[in-house]
């Protein structure tokens, strides 16, 4: 197993994914309509075009992703540290400053993902250029690396120097502004791909994971046969509807159960509350009221095509003489309702429903709130741990040590030993 921080062939999967996502952000930032407003930035006596300030970057990120300043600063900082944006002032310090400091987008030519992997040859040429351009411009660590490279790739050194001279000659023909920009871009690239000592290596991605996944487990016929077997078994599984397993999720919170006591409507609009109330009514043999109310709700809020059918059902179950779940409505309302049913529409049962609603509210609801069923629910209800901070041990600054579990078990072992000796001694008396 090799520990490879710079893969020989191509970027690793996880690296590629992150670079691509960052590149999407960068492209969005440069969008002509929704991107950032860029302007000329003055650097000493030169004017650099297409630049933005640190604050501009942060503001754009806040607006684009609906995040706060701290997170925008952090995200922007990542873009700088991975080399997609570089600072014009203090270019050796790849940090995002939330102020008027000028920054520029790195050219895709110098994106780490484009030129992966950074080669020794290219680094040698870069250092050679710096060395030739101005004596003593190389930093101490760069001098060390330069001499190491000189030893290691000595056989191509003539080529290195020739390339360096050629590139310097070409750059002299550019405008000063362009030359400065190119030098900044190239410097930023190398700061990331060959970080100075003491600076975090952003390209350290830890242990290498296999790029070619089938290298680990041979995807042979045995493997697929086993997959087929697993899938077949899985198909035969009993599955539960989402609405059932997600709803009855945890024990309700105390606040939720308390809300049922605020008003009858609160209880009825909470599915769990309705279920609990139904259980109570069943004990009182008056559950038909709630069933009726629910059936009326379904007509009011349901499909038009089903109205006639549903009204028919409600009549048969709740309103007809001798109905299985007959509801007790006053005669005036009953007469009006039965008349209306002859020409059923969405709101034909409104009066009857209202009557039953007030009946439950006045009668069953207050008794429910006083019942053991409700009181037990309230007692069982949870107050989320997250809200009880003050008792958390790590909030206090206690510094006393406590006996290690290993010590407790060692002591127990000791005591067992002693007890054994004592009883032996005792039995002799």
């Amino acid at each position, binding site marked *: *197993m090799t520990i490879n921080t710079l893969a020989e062939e191509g970027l690793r*999967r*996880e690296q590629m*994914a*992150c670079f691509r*996502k*960052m590149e999407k952000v960068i492209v969005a930032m440069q969008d002509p309509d929704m991107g950032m407003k860029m302007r000329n930035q003055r650097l000493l006596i030169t004017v650099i075009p297409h630049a933005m300030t640190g604050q501009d970057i942060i503001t754009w990120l806040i607006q684009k*992703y609906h*995040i706060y300043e*701290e*997170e925008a600063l*952090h*995200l922007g900082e*990542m873009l700088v540290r991975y080399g997609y944006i570089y600072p014009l002032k203090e270019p050796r310090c790849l940090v995002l400053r939330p102020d008027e400091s000028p920054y520029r987008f790195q050219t895709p030519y110098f994106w780490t993902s484009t030129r992966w992997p950074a080669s020794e040859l290219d680094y040698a040429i870069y250092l050679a250029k710096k060395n030739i351009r101005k004596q003593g411009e190389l930093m101490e660590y760069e001098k060390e690396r330069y001499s190491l490279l000189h030893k290691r790739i000595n056989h191509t050194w003539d080529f290195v120097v020739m390339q360096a001279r050629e590139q310097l000659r070409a750059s002299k023909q550019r405008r000063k502004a362009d030359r400065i920009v190119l030098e900044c871009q190239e410097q930023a690239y190398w700061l990331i791909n060959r970080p100075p000592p003491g600076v*975090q290596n952003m390209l350290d991605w830890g*242990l290498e*994971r*296999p790029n070619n*996944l*089938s290298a*680990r487990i041979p995807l*042979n*016929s045995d*493997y*697929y046969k086993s*997959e087929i077997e*697993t*899938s*077949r078994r*899985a*198909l035969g599984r009993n*599955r*539960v*509807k*989402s*609405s059932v*397993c997600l*709803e009855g*999720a*945890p024990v309700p*919170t105390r606040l939720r159960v308390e809300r049922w006591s605020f008003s009858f409507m609160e209880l009825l609009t909470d599915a*769990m509350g309705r279920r609990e109330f139904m259980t109570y009514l069943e004990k009182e043999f008056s559950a038909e009221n709630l069933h009726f109310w629910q059936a009326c709700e379904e007509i009011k809020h349901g499909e038009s095509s089903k109205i006639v059918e549903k009204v028919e059902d409600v009549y048969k179950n709740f309103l007809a003489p001798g109905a299985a779940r007959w509801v007790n409505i006053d005669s005036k309302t009953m007469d009006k309702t039965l008349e209306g049913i002859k020409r059923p529409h969405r709101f034909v049962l409104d009066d009857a429903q209202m009557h039953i609603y007030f009946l439950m509210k006045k009668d069953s609801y207050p008794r429910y709130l006083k019942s053991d069923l409700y009181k037990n629910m309230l007692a069982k209800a949870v107050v*989320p*741990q*997250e809200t009880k*901070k003050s*008792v*958390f*041990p*790590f*909030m206090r600054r*206690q*510094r*006393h*040590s*406590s006996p*290690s*579990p*290993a010590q*407790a078990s060692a002591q127990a072992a000791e005591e067992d030993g002693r007890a054994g000796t004592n009883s032996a001694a005792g039995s002799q008396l």
Partner: protein
Amino acid sequence: MRSPPIPEMATQEVQLNETLAHLKTESDTLKTKLEEERAKLHDVELHQVAEKVEALGQFVMKTRRTLKGHGNKVLCMDWCKDKRRIVSSSQDGKVIVWDAFTTNKEHAVTMPCTWVMACAYAPSGCAVACGGLDNKCSVYPLSLDKNENLAAKKKSVAMHTNYLSACCFTNSDMQILTSSGDGTCALWDVESGQLLQSFHGHAADVLCLDLAPSETANTFVSGGCDKKANVWDMRSGQCIQSFETHESDINSVRYYPSGDAFASGSDDATCRLYDLRADREVAIYSKESIIFGVSSVDFSLSGRLLFGGYNDYTINVWDVLKGTRVSILFGHENRVSTLRVSPDGTAFCTGSWDHTLRIWA
């Protein structure tokens, strides 16, 4: 370089390839069918059900302790049942046991290998297990004698053919569950070092595992580089459920406190929730501004919150039911590689490539 195949052998090889292609097609078809069956019963989204639930209040979490002492990237940590001790392991081969309240180091062991990616505290609190690039999982009884060399009493328990990615004691000190870069998980007897059961089914490195919370459950979940999260029956060795919705490697899996669901964290920068009774993914926790992978996830005690440690050095806290991001925490100066909530839920600990561990509350 292969010489041109003899005609008969060529036919045989072609037949073999056809059979393999045929099997692969059959496997893929069944998987598609499985997804269709799962989708049929998905009649409501979790966040819809959660509309009735009260929103969480604002709460602030800060670093309360910083544990310094590792000389390189911290890769893994685990809590002791006593709710204050912690074991952590690092790239430089060191395994340290800390008292997180006082920040004192109580034990230290140097492993014979680097990249100790897995460590676990025994339920009794009297031993720790760890392993990594040595392909093994070893158990060290914790001695109180400061002069005693812990390495002397070391017991080699598990043996894989590639790196050890995670380890976990079952309900006692007697058995250990391991996952490995060799694509398998295994259950071992600590005393004898015997392999009790092995679990095959992942197509690539297995990176993480978690044991079901109930003592009667006898199942565990694992996640790997093949983007699959598998639920296993510990007795039979069979894979009972498999989920393949992530777009990249799954770095961390953790059961929901009730045991009816589990969460996963992946290099695709999302965390996901899978309900075991519904047999499907029921929530995705992601945000456009979150670009870097999740290395480690854990639930709060009630299961209402999901904490995720990310490769961009941050911790994102998610409302499990509503699917929204509640908070983002800064502090580490390099990747967060490991995250565990304390046994009593009053704090959580993170380990990072910045060489430190932090306790948050």
